[in-house]
């Protein structure tokens, strides 16, 4: 009967309940999308790192990483690394942030790579760049094979595409030959950002150090660390907003049902049963809002300019947290319900 009573009351106040569910669902959907954005940073970085197929990186001693925190190395470092014991393959990589197109140029992550060996990302359609003037682009840039692309003012021809290849918050990746990358990034000087290696060197050339993939991954993610902190904070605030919405509805419900509760108590309904009624309402509201929120998040997620990958943990966590939020939010209402004097039932309506 508790469930029937709670459900009937929600039906009775359906307009308010619908508004509350819509509001909470929207908040939940934004929370989910934000967690998807945050997780998307990890997923795109992992995908890009995996595409290099390296075991580690040789960077300049003191450099924070091979990408964002790079300190350029002389091109000759590659040969020195290849001769080290423990290294089975080594290739130079150049990384820089550039733009493609004219008029409204788009920011890209430029990777200068060699055409075979380690650190040559797999191309989904077409082939890797082999000659000067050839470029492989992320499908996020919406270029096709054979298209002409202006990269930092220099013309390139698309020879391959990689599906949704992005890093640093959805910025598309492009691959060119090492020489072209050096021309664009280092004015043609034989300078490289890092050396990708297979194997683990026992010693490294003077002035360099070995960096594991995990550290290189952190280097790429460093660019979005502030954004991620902001997103997490907003997510926390959104949970509080959701709790406030549900709490308001439950509290109002408790206020308006004072006479009902008084009658229930006067006719022998225990406090626990009345509390279960309110808790059930809060949980029902939260779970329905979570379901609608998930649906909305699934619909709006792909429209975001950054990769939105809603983690499975969030899908599990959402209803769990939603129930917790519902329970927390109903506390004020529960206190109100417990305080109801059954003698109110004898007063005139």
């Amino acid at each position, binding site marked *: 009967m508790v469930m029937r009573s709670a459900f*009937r009351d929600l039906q009775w106040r359906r307009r308010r309940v619908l508004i509350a569910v819509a509001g909470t669902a929207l908040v939940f959907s934004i929370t989910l999308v934000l967690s998807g954005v945050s997780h998307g940073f990890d997923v795109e970085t992992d995908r890009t790192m995996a595409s290099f197929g390296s075991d580690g990186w040789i960077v300049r001693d003191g450099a924070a990483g091979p990408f964002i925190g790079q300190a350029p190395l002389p091109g000759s470092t590659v040969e020195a690394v290849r001769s080290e014991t423990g290294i089975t393959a080594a290739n130079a990589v150049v990384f820089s942030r550039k733009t493609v197109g004219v008029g409204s140029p788009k920011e890209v992550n430029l990777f200068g790579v060699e055409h075979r060996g380690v650190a040559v990302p797999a191309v989904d359609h077409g082939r890797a760049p082999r000659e000067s003037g050839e470029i492989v682009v992320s499908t996020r840039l919406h270029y096709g094979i054979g298209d002409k692309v202006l990269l930092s003012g220099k013309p390139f021809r698309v020879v391959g595409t990689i599906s949704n290849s992005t890093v640093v918050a959805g910025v598309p990746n492009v691959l060119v030959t090492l020489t072209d990358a050096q021309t664009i990034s280092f004015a043609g000087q034989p300078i490289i950002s890092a050396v990708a290696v297979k194997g683990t060197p026992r010693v490294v050339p003077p002035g360099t150090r070995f960096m594991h993939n995990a550290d290189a991954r952190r280097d790429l993610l460093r660019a979005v660390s502030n954004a991620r902190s902001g997103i997490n904070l907003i997510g926390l605030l959104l949970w509080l907003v959701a709790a406030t919405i549900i709490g308001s509805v439950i509290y109002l419900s408790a206020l308006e049902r004072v006479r009902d509760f008084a009658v229930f108590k006067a*006719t*022998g309904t*225990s406090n626990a049963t009345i509390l279960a009624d309110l808790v059930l309402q809060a949980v029902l509201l939260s779970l329905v809002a979570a379901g609608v929120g998930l649906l909305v998040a699934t619909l709006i997620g792909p429209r975001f300019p950054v990769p939105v990958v809603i983690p499975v943990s969030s899908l599990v966590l959402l209803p769990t947290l939603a129930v917790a939020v519902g329970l927390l939010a109903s506390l004020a209402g529960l206190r109100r319900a417990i305080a109801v004097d*059954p003698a109110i039932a004898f007063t005139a309506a």
Partner: protein
Amino acid sequence: MKLNIRHLTIEYASGGSVVRPVSGLDLSASSGSLVLLLGPSGCGKTSLLSCLGGILTPKHGRIRFGDVEVDALKGAKLTAYRRHMVGIVFQAFNLVPSMTALENVMVPLCNGGVRRRKARARADSLLEQVGLGDRTDDRPSRMSGGEQQRVAIARALALDPPLLLADEPTAHLDSIGVEGVMRLLRELADGDRLVVIATHDERLLPIADRVVELVPKTTRDLREHVTPLPMERVAVQAAFVAGMPASTR
């Protein structure tokens, strides 16, 4: 079962003051009878019903119904008393507006541990008994005052309590509704059930086995009631007693 009230004094807080509507009341009644508590507003009728229903704790005195010391009940025992021993028909009907007539009657049944199917059958039967067998799925807002009152009576009877309390049961009814409710209440006061009605409506006098007139002590001009029934006057004190603690449950 017998109801025994001894030296009952009721106090409660109201508007910053302490009100003592009943002071030193003695009363007894037995099952199978209908007792009418008659008197003007403020004489303590509803407070007395609240005490009998285990909702208000008297300041002094004893209330015993059967072998239950009502005034001493607390916690789960009090809840059980309210649930199984007493049925209350409130002046304002107090049906839950979001629930149908059937569901309103099912509430005390389900809370009393009756299984859902049996509760539904019992509620159906009770609504049939009060003449609302065809209105089970209607919400209170679609019912007249008289119909709501009959649903409230059905709800009060749900667990077949030996004590039925009715507070101003005719207050919101038209003359046709009054007649129906009077007949119903009269029928209910038989066998093992004691019915106590608080009212100022003298139209109910003919159905009472016993009439107890609650008269404020300060009222000296006690008028005689023209009634063939035995009637007793119980003088109660309706007074504001400033600074005294109130005790309510």
